[in-house]
Structure formats: structure tokens, C-alpha cells
């Protein structure tokens, strides 16, 4: 009869178990480490692709030097930078305190056209803030704004020939 030969491992049966356990743990740990790094990298990458945004405003002024301003329409755009209009306010003069209306078609074709009119008696003359455009700025590029006065008229509907438009910017940050 041949008796099976028992091969005795150098470190004994208990040590074999320990070796197997720590190999398993080591494998798990390495796998978790790699996955964690990948996740952190992924999260870092997705965070990097999300564009930071900040908020500010642009005040719009109209100069009506010789005639009282009763109605206006202007186009506003950002020639540089990614900007979204997020709210429109009126201006300082009582006649234009209410927020102007915006052209919805233009708004969604990368232009903003705002207009307002007043039939009140207290119409402003001279340099007057007519609107504040609240904006969201995306990315790090500093926007450059332009405004074009498309129409301005007095109470009789006469065009104010020497009217001019200007802008100032601001933010709460």
C-alpha cells in the first residue's frame, strides 16, 4: 500500500491561510485604490468641464438732450464672452420705472431687444438710466457689451435725433 505523501509547506497550514487572506485583502485594496483614483479623476474632470458662472448687471442710459424721452427701443448684446440675460429692470425715471419688454424671438437668437414707452406727464430729459439688465456671465472671459439705440421718440412721436445710448457695468461681488 502506498501512503500518500503529505507535503508540508515551509510555514505550516495556518500560515497558508494567512497568506491567502492578505493576498485577497491586498487585491481588494489595490482594486479599490485604483477605482477610487479613477472616480476622483472622473469627478475632477466633470467639475472641470462645468462652466463657472457669476452674476452682474449692465445699466443702460439714454441721453435725450433736447426732447423729453417718451419711448425707446434698443438692442443689447455681448460681443465677447458668454452672457445670459436673467432679468430686466426699469430705470430711475418714474416714467420708465416699470421693467421694459423684451423681444422673445430676438432673445433666443443671441440678441436682446428691449423697448418701453410712457404716456405719463413726467417724461425725463437729458441723461437718464432707462433699464438695468441682470446677467449671468459664464466662463472667465470678461464680456464686452454693445448697445444700439434703434428708436427713441418724444410724446408727440417725433424721433429724438440726437439721442445716444451708453452702458455701465456692475456686480454685487
Amino acid at each position, binding site marked *: 500500500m502506498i501512503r500518500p505523501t503529505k507535503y508540508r509547506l515551509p510555514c505550516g497550514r495556518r500560515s497558508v491561510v494567512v497568506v491567502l487572506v492578505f493576498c485577497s*485583502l491586498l487585491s481588494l485594496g*489595490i482594486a479599490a485604490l485604483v477605482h477610487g483614483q479613477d472616480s476622483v479623476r472622473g469627478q475632477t474632470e466633470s*467639475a472641470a468641464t462645468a462652466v463657472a458662472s457669476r452674476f452682474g*448687471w449692465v445699466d443702460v442710459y439714454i441721453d435725450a438732450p433736447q426732447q423729453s424721452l417718451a419711448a425707446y427701443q434698443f438692442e443689447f448684446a455681448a460681443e465677447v464672452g458668454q452672457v445670459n440675460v*436673467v432679468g430686466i429692470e426699469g430705470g430711475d425715471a418714474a416714467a420708465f420705472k416699470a421693467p421694459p419688454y423684451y423681444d422673445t424671438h430676438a432673445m433666443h437668437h443671441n440678441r436682446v431687444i428691449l423697448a418701453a414707452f410712457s404716456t405719463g406727464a413726467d417724461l425725463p430729459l437729458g441723461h437718464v438710466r432707462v433699464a438695468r439688465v*441682470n446677467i449671468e456671465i459664464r466662463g472667465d472671459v470678461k464680456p464686452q457689451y454693445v448697445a444700439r439705440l434703434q428708436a427713441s421718440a418724444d410724446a408727440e412721436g417725433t424721433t429724438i435725433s440726437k439721442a445716444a445710448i451708453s452702458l455701465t457695468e456692475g456686480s454685487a461681488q
Partner: protein
Amino acid sequence: MFQTFFGRFGKAFLGMLLAISVAAAIYGCVAQSFDGRPVSRNWSDGDTATSPGSFSQAPSNGVPVPSKIPFKDGRAMAGESALPSRDEELWVIEKPSSEAVPPLAGDDQQPGSGVLMATPPGEQTLTPVPLKHTDVKASVAGYIATVEVTQRFQNPYDGKIEAVYVFPLPHNAAVNEFVMTVGQRTIRGIIRQRQEAERIYNAAKSQGYVASLLTQERPNIFTQSVANVEPGKAIDISIRYFHTLAYVDGWYEFVFPMVVGPRFHPSGSSQGVGAVPRGQPGTSHQAAEVQYLRPSERSGHDISLSLHIAAGVKIEEVQTRTHQVSIKNTPAGQAEIVLDDKDSIPNRDFVLRYKVAGQAIKSCVMVQRDPKRRDGKSGYFTLMLYPPQSLADLPRKPLEMVFTIDVSGSQTGAPLAQEKTAVRYALTHMGPQDTFQVIRFGNTAEKLFANPVPANEQYVAQALRYVDALEAGGGTMLVDGVHASLLFPHDPKRLRFVAFMTDGFIGNDEEALREVHNCLDQSRIFSFGVGSSTNRYLLEGMARMGNGAAAFLGLHDDANEVMGKFFERISHPAMTDISVDFGTIGATEVFPQRLGDLFVGRPVTITGRYSGDGRQTIRVHGNIGNEAAIIEIPVDLNDASATRDGIAAVWARTKLADLADRSSYEAVGDLAGQIRQVALEYGLISSFTAFVAVDASAKTTGDHGTTVGVPAPVPEGVRYATTVIPNQQ
């Protein structure tokens, strides 16, 4: 040698390797949790976000929850003010126990104000809510209503909040203006694609700006969110919309809905509007939620309403059975109606009807010129098409009547009593040649008879006993009720008219409408909205899809009278197979694309675009019985008295509704894109567009505060215990 090595150093070596392995495993797991995915999720639209390292009075159950500092770019933002936005994740170290629903206590006044309210016995507890008042100013010219709704949000707590309010508007409201007032300043909001509007709102909220967002959950349910409302401060939100009035059996009807009824959702649905108790947001697992006050609670939110009517002709009578009002008739066909101060709790729809002089109400057209066209020869029109008077003189055919009765939990009490009264009337007023069936539905649908039976004394008596014994309870499997009403063989000798009675409190509206369309065949559905705040979007939709008409039976209406008018309507043949010849008006994009039958007492409103001017004639062709009929309608496109603001908005809104209707039963290519394009072009809110407004002039201090849902009372006549609590199971 090998044995010696392991013998001498093996144990130490093994121990070191073991320690390294365990450490690596632990670090790997921790790194995974810090990649922005929460280990335990405790976030929903209604959840809180607090300043780092602080305990927050989470509104979900009042249990303080320590919050974790959020990560950004892989780094902890400790001590910084960049707080999570609505779509970012917030983790918590401890998750509050979901079973811990605290009992009501005097200090259960979120968020952590510590205010104690002493309540006299038998009275309701006054619960501070961030919505103080709603003001409604409406005016009607012809059959076009212009309505301005102003909601005043005021923070009654000692910490900054975001207020979230889910509320109803008429399902055909064309919402095209949104204005936020902060102190003395008024900011007009911008209509944007919904995702973009939400992104802007969340960014503004997280940075401390006062911002507001209006989104549409259903055509008749909206969510208003206002961020960064500082303690004691008020923010007003004004919404303007246009809509056409219904004309019902000789009366124009103005409706202003005030509260969303608690909706039932079949299992597995998640895109509905959940109904949860106040202070338990997120527990319904639906996309939107309404929190409801317990019967022992009341909020300070009240409503004021004024309505100016310019009918153009003498107003003979004005009535409302839902509210106390004062009515002042001014000369020349005008009236001023004001809601009484004592009736200002917004727990039921405001319904006002008025009758104008003249027996022969004629079909009429209203127009609005397109301001973008300089020639002034194009624009938008609405045509209210009245049935010809001759319909009332003709006898009707035998009918196969099906009475389908909602006996779900929301019908408990007064609503079911109204249904029973109406059906009893109907059962005793059928013709000798008619047959009938009675169906009840709740958790399931059940027919009284295997097949429709003759309307003789024996069967009518059996049906009366059956109806008298009905009890309400359980869910609202409305689609089962639709199937039971329509999916059985049609009697070719009779017209099948289904009188479908329900409050429509379901979350799967679109599925129900699709099934009506798919199963209708030769039947007609007449929907009856029973209750104080019914789902008119669903009920009108069922009638539209079902080629019938909708009627509404409020809790204070005479059920016999309403059912009597229904029988009057179906007792005469309808004008069928209707087509409209617009002649040389150049009508395009006319909606609805499919015109239903024209019943006595029920006109149909058609809207479209036109190009032309001067006097024209519109001809409506159809069949009455077996005979062809024509209605001629003279139109003067230059008539200034026929010009109305808001018709362009009404047209665009009708187009959106038509697209949505069609999408429920046919594949409409890029539906979202089409809806978005129309909504953005006309500045309308829709399921794919939203209004947003940000006050960028000033930042509020601190984090963006606690989100507080504005709770609503359950509608009058609806029982809290059978509608809100069961939804949590």
C-alpha cells in the same frame, strides 16, 4: 534555507503585508465615497443645505441632521460659501430614521424658529408658511380673460429660506409674463429652455442671489420657487396669463383654481405629483409634490380676487355657488365682482357664471393683428362656433348609456353623494328604447351587469339599489374605468354615451387620455368633474378625446340640474363630421386639428392664423342626422371691436396643447423640440420652457438657507385621511 527565512521573518513579514492590505482597502473605499457620490442619500428637491459643520433643522421630519461639507473639484470646500446647488449632492454623516415622524407639537414650526403657538381647544393650529397672500385681478372682454396673479412670499422664520409652492392655473392658460418684485425694484423674468432656466436658478441660489423660477408640471399644475428670502423680507411674484372662457348651456364660465387635489399614482410611477403631509417632502417619490395641511392645521395664506367683465352686451345674470362675492353691475354690459374677505381661504375653485342677453347667441370671431407684420393684414383669430338652433328641434336616437362612477378614496363623503344623486336622476330619465350599464371603479373596475340591459323598471330598480350601496375608498385606477366603459361590443342600433364621473385626482393623466383615444371607437365620453377642485385638464381632455363634452358638478351645485342639462344635450343629435371653410381668409395652423361634434349648449372654440382683411364669410359644414347642414359666419377683419389682446398667446397655447394631445397617441417627431420652439417664440411657459428671474444687484448673506414647501389645505369636501395618508403606503 527557504524554510529558515520564513521561520525567522515570516510572521513579521506576513503581519506587515496584512497591515498594508487592510490600509489600502480602507483608503480605497473612502476615496470612492469622496468622489461626489453620496454614501447615503438624503437629498431631494425639498432637502436642506446648511452652512458647513452646522446642524440643520431638516424640514423632512424635524430631526437635526449634521451636514457634510460639499466637495468641488475634488477638494472639500470647508469654510467657503460655495454651497451645493439643487442638482448637486449633499451627504450626511447620519441619516435620520425614516420611521421617526415626530408628533405634532407646538414647536413643530420649521425651520427651527422655536416659535410656540398656543392653540385653543377645538381650533386649528396656525402654521406659519412662506406664502402670505395671493391676489388675483382678472378682466374679461368677450370670451377672452386676462388674469394677473400676484403671490406674496414672506419669510416668517429667523433663517433664510427657499420657498417652493405647487399651485394650479387653468389648463388652457397661456402664461406669458413673469415679474419678480424685491423691495422697490421690479424685475421681469425671462423665458428659457427649462433645463437652462433651472441651471441659472440653481447657480444664483447657491451664490446667494434672490432668484425665482416658474416651471410647469402639468398643463394645470405649476411650481414656483423663490430662493434666498431673508428673514422678514417679502418677494412678490406676478404671473399673467390669457385664456378663453367656456360657454356652458347659456352661461359663460370663469374659473380660477386655487388648490391641487391629492393625486393617486399607480404603483411604479414616478413622474406624477405626489401628495404628502406637511413637513414630509420627498416621501411620495414623485417628481413634484404638494404638501397638505392636516385637518387640525391652517395656514395664514389667504386670497383676494376681483373680476371685471366687459361682455359687450347686457349682462342678464351673474352667479357663483362656490364663494361669497359682491357684484356691481355698471352700465353698458359690464360688471365688477369682488371676493368677500370672509371667504378667502384658497381650498376650492372659484367658479363664476354669467348670462348675456339675446336668445340667439351667434358664432363670432375675434382677432389680433400680428405686430411683426407691417401691412396689418395678418394675425391670429379665435372663432367660437355655436351649434345651430335647429338641433334642439330634432328627436334623438336610442342610446346605450354607460354610467361610470369613481368610488376612490377622494370621493368619500360629499363627492360620492353628488355622484349618486346625479346617477339616480339619469337612471330615472332614460328613454324606453335605451339600454344602460353601471360601472364603479376604485382599486379595480366592476360592472353591475354582464352586458347593457334595457332601461325598464326592473333593471332600473336594481341599478338604483346598487348605486345607493356604493361606498368610497381605495386608489383611483381610472384607466381600468376607461377600459371597462369602452372595451365591450358596440350595439350598432344605438349611440354609446359614457357618463364618466370623477374628480380626476390621478397622476397618470396622459396615460388615461391615450387610452380614451385608443379605445373610443364609436363611443362618446361625457366627463363629469365632481368636487370642489377637480382636475379640469384631465376632464376636458377626456371629453375632447372622447368626442363629447365636459360638465362640472361642484359640491354646492344641484346634481339634478347638472344631469338634467346633460340629458337635454344628448337628447338632441349633434352636428357631426364638421369641417370649416375659411374662404379667402387664408387661415393656416388651425387648432384643434380634429373638431369634435357640436352639441346643443356646447360651442367649440377654434383658433388659427389668418392673412387678409375686410369682410369675409366662414362656412361650417356638417351633418345633422342624415342631412347636410351649413352655418355661415360673417367676419369683418377690420372691425376694431373684434380686436383683442392675447389672441396670439391663446393660439400658441392651443398649438402646444394640440402637440401634447397628439403625442399621447401618435409619434410626433421631436415633440420636445416643436413645443420648445413655439413656447420660446411666443414667450410661453410649457413642459420644456420655464421663467427665471435673478436679482443680481445684491447678494444675501450666509448660505442659501432651508427649503420650505408651502403647504396647502386639502380641497373642500376631500378627506385628508383617505387621500394624503394612504399615498405614503
